[in-house]
């Protein structure tokens, strides 16, 4: 077989093997990458870091383990920002009955980090409240948006070491009557709940999303129409946020990122644990994507060579 043919018909198993190598080996190394965060990520970061810590935020966690690669990194960064700033928040899910548990696992992880550094862990019920899962996403989001109290009525959460208690007895929900009493609704999602949230909640309070790469294009439409104050898109977004947390925005340092549209400085958490899925996976993603580009090029080179071969033969035969 000629090289041209070989290039065009590489065996699938070989291609798959190389992909496994490309997505495994780089995970063992820390590879620093230059980066320029998307404007949407910068906006997301600034809005999250300038929240008023005394007023609660509503956090929707609508992802499960099957999209862990992108969503977990985003979720972890969001939680780190909340907990380090003492931001009270209320957690709920509408996408999947499993979602609250997955979110609680991430909260536990960040809490372990805090304990290691001798910081006070975030206390359930006092610092954050878990409303749980609401079936029928569209109706539930509509309910939360239009009549928060009635929709949440009867929900219970567990104060540390105590029995289940009505969520409205929690200090977090003390001054909350409607969704307008939340400063912001943050949605970390891998499903359509982001669309429902924009449709129902926009205009009542600020919205910021963290979505998977597949949902990036449709979410961008809302960001451009200024319905979202910022959004984080897939793994790139997760990486952006982790970098922003490390380097800060418009801060007095050469490493800091710049944002000319809002020149006010926003400090990050320099030197703290800011590494997450984004930093770990993003370099690896480069290898995988590069492999894809190389494969496409090889296939085309093979095709062009084969064409040349056959046209030569034709000429020769004449």
């Amino acid at each position, binding site marked *: 077989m000629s090289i041209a043919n070989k290039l065009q018909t590489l065996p699938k198993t070989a291609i*798959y093997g190389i*992909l496994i190598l490309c997505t495994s080996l780089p995970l063992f190394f820390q590879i620093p990458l230059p980066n320029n965060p998307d404007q949407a990520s910068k906006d997301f970061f600034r809005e999250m870091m300038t929240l008023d810590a005394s007023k609660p935020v509503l956090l929707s966690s609508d992802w499960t383990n099957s999209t862990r690669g992108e969503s977990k990194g985003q979720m972890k960064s969001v939680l780190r920002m909340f907990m380090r700033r003492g931001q009270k928040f209320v957690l709920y899910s509408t996408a999947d009955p499993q979602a609250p548990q997955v979110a609680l696992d991430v909260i536990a992880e960040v809490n372990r980090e805090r304990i290691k550094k001798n910081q006070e862990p975030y206390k359930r019920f006092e610092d954050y409240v878990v409303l749980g899962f609401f079936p029928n996403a569209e109706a539930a989001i509509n309910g939360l948006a239009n009549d928060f109290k009635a929709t949440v009525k009867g929900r219970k959460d567990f104060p540390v070491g105590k029995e289940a208690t009505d969520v409205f007895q929690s200090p977090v929900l003390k001054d909350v009557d409607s969704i307008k009493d939340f400063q912001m609704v943050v949605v970390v999602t891998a499903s359509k709940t982001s669309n429902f949230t924009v449709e129902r909640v926009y205009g009542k309070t600020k919205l910021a999303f963290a979505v998977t790469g597949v949902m990036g294009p449709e979410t*961008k439409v809302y960001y451009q129409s200024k319905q979202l104050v910022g959004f984080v898109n897939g793994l790139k977004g997760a*990486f952006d946020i982790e970098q922003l947390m490390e380097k800060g925005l418009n801060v007095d340092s050469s490493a800091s990122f710049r944002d000319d549209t809002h020149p006010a400085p926003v400090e990050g958490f320099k030197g703290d644990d800011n590494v997450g899925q984004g930093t770990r996976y993003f370099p690896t993603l480069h290898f995988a994507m590069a492999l894809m580009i190389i494969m496409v090029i090889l296939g085309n080179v093979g095709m062009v060579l084969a064409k040349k071969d056959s046209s030569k033969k034709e000429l020769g035969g004449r």
Partner: protein
Amino acid sequence: MFNLLPIAFWSDPAGSSALTGKIVFGLLLGVGLLFALTKVPTQMRRSIVFGGTFLSGLFYVLFYLWPQPITRGPNDVPRDAVEGVAFWLKDSFSVVVNFTQIISGFMLGLGVYSLLRIHLTRIAKGHKDAFFSFVLLGSMVAMAFFAYGDYILRLDPVKAQELENPDKWGPLTRGRDLLFDGLLQQMDAAMFSIIAFFILSAAYRAFRVRSVEATILLATALLVILSLMGLVADRVDGFFGGLVANDPNDFFENFKLTTLRNFIGDNLQTPSINGITLGTGIGALAMGLRIWLGLEKGSGN
């Protein structure tokens, strides 16, 4: 009073004997109906199926078309018959909206029956894959058993709270955790991520400069991929950014990868998807009308 039927007729307090009586009556009514239907002459069958379809569709159409009063308080009484119907439609909506889910829920047994039939036959006949059929049925029973067992434990709020702590798990919760979190969820993630292999081999095979269409597909896809590689985007954008000194009106600004990707996304991808969605939306409307009005032959009617 313009209420169609007083609420008191439809609902009774939980646990009351009136409620139980009405439920039993309803059940008997349903069974009677089933029996009556088996006696229906052939020529009437079509009309019965059509009638059911039409009436259920009519609910939503009426809900859409019937004039609704602008505001309504929780204890308002309708002022006339039009408002009476409007109130009734509105009140029934939250009931009707769950019908699809409930009715299809009752049908799950058919799916399970289909599985049992195929796999039990295999086991009985000693088919070469009989072992796998056994595995399938076994894991089905195990999952349902552990999931319900754990669910029943957690119905007790004190116990539920205790189970938040993994050290206190009994065999039921452990089993559920192992089967659901340890296996099912992991397999979901594995199957989801297997797409990465296929996306690579599909791109390798299909992205050839063979025809105009394939070339367009290839070029756009590669451009978007490059723009998502932070390193490449950073270098290319930095290069062109340096040329133009950040004047948005400069010609070279257009060559920044991220600008290009956004431009394609906003002005080509969005409208082409919108165009397709509009088309399928119109198709669905036409299909809906045909089914609702019984014009579609061969399917539901």
